[in-house]
């Protein structure tokens, strides 16, 4: 593992971002709009609902955390797609770069880009709707860590799918977070779901985060066992995604796909 090779992957992404407003704006614009939209929805619900529920903390906080996970995932996949679009794989993998260094480079990029999104969301949610993530207390660190690890796992899974199926498969990758939302108990407790959906939800790390976040918002203590389960599932997902990516890469090297990777050669 050589830091200078990981740095090369990060530096390339920095060059792409620094010279391109079209790449920088999406890092925060859509999530900021999401926070504004849900901020007004929660404010309205607070006004009309008879329930003694703090919608800002429960719903808007959940939206913010879910958007953070999405940004982490997209941070990995966007960096990967830049190499897909510029047909850069042969250039990269004919160098001493290893798969692990490449993936770590993508993850490092994602840390930076998702942090931008998170900070903007926190600022907008606080300034416009008075949401403070401090409401989650020390548990917030656990929430963010689990969502980060799972977001990275989803990102690596997405890159493996595109490497295997070709660039056209990127349209399968963008909606993955939306596909998981109903199962991940983002906006409602897991118990709301029918049994089979609950079973899927329990296999997803974010559901443990959102259950715990709701509990904290309602004044209860989060279950450490549940958070530990969520963390373990996220790490398992990350290991599984890394294993899958390595297998897909090796297959691509064996079949010649890596050397000739383009939309024409795969799809």
């Amino acid at each position, binding site marked *: 593992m050589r830091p200078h090779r990981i740095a090369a992957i990060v*530096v390339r992404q920095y060059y792409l971002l620094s010279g391109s407003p079209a790449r920088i704006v999406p890092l925060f614009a859509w999530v900021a709009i999401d926070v504004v939209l849900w901020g007004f929805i929660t404010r309205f619900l607070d006004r009309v609902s008879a329930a003694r529920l703090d919608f800002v903390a429960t719903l808007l906080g959940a939206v913010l955390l879910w958007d953070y996970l999405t940004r982490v995932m997209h941070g990995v996949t966007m960096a990967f797609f830049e190499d897909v679009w*510029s047909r850069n*794989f042969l250039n990269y993998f004919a160098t001493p770069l290893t798969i692990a260094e490449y993936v770590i480079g993508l993850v490092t990029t994602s840390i930076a880009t998702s942090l931008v999104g998170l900070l903007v969301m926190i600022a907008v949610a606080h300034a416009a709707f008075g949401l403070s993530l401090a409401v989650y207390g020390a548990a917030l660190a656990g929430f963010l860590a689990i969502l980060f690890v799972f977001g990275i796992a989803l990102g690596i899974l997405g890159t493996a799918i595109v490497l295997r199926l070709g660039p056209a498969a990127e349209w399968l990758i963008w909606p993955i977070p939306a596909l998981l939302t109903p199962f991940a108990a983002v906006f409602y407790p897991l118990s709301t779901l029918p049994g089979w959906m609950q079973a899927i939800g329990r296999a997803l790390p974010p559901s443990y985060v959102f259950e715990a976040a709701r509990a904290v918002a309602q004044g209860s203590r989060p279950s450490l066992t549940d958070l530990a389960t969520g963390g373990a599932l996220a790490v398992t997902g990350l290991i599984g995604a890394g294993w899958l990516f390595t297998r897909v890469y090796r297959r691509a090297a064996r079949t010649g796909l890596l050397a000739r990777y383009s939309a024409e050669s795969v799809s």
Partner: protein
Amino acid sequence: MPLLFSYGTLREEDVQLSTFGRRLKGHPDELVGFEQSSLRVEDPAFVAASGKSDHAVVKFTGRNESRVAGTAFEVSHEELLKADRYEPAGYKRVSTTLASGKQAWVYADARLPPPPVLAIRELCKSYRETVAVDCISFEVRENEIVGLLGPNGAGKTTTINMVLGVLEPTSGSIRIGAVDLRRQRSRALERTNFAAVYTPLPGNLTVVENLRVFGLLYGVRDLRLRIDEVLGQFDLVRFRDAKLGVLSSGEQTRVALAKAMLNRPHLLLLDEPTASLDPASARDVRNRIRTMVRETQAGVLWTSHNMQEVQEVCDRVLFLSRGRVLLDGDPRVLPGQHGKATLEDLFIAVAREPLSLEGA
């Protein structure tokens, strides 16, 4: 060859001898002895280059092969004092006879030469029933440009992709220097580089940004200085901050070549490097590559469909057809050996009637 010179003053009793030159890496072969019968070999090329006529070429014999160990010649005392002298372990002192008949002691490198820059053994690549490369073996040595020729689909690019580590062989081995590519991919590729027409560098980065990224990937030391050097060598200084995508195809090719030289590769793979260049630029690029090879002692594997270029540049060519090496030899001599007037005629014969040349 020769890589080192041995020299000394020629007094029978007070022999003052030394050696200088490039130290060779250790070699697993074991010295058996010096080949006494070859001590008086004349070397006209060396005489012409050095102006030293009173000399001898010294050979030694290893358990696996014998080779020239150095050239002994008489020097003045002043020359001796100026020389960068050393007598390292592993050198052997032997008596030799110069061209004039004088006897001299020579400290000669007792080790065998380094392994080839690229050694391919029984390399095969199959896609189910289709055999793309059919158990080929060849070597590229230091300071050697080898042309890999053949019609489309002959297996040239497949071979290059396997050497670059982006395509896994079905069987066989690839060694870059002393390193096995399959076992130590990253180490093997550290001193390798390539340029190919079908692999453009990212067009959305500037020239200098691309060179920085690839300089980091190859771990180039003093990267800023090295980038300035290659930009100058390939006449790219004025394009350094231009996005690669807006450059002409010829300019992009020069950037790809600058990237290929960035890490001073020991093995350079060039897949039709001058295909998109005008004749003047192509000649310029050929000269630069040859200069680089002379300076760095690199080995080059070069594919091209321009037979004039191949004849001008390559020390040796390999003709591939249907994944097999049909012919191997000097591009200036091979056509005559096979009854053809030009290398292009030979190429066409290989493409159309490979069976007539098989086993030639």
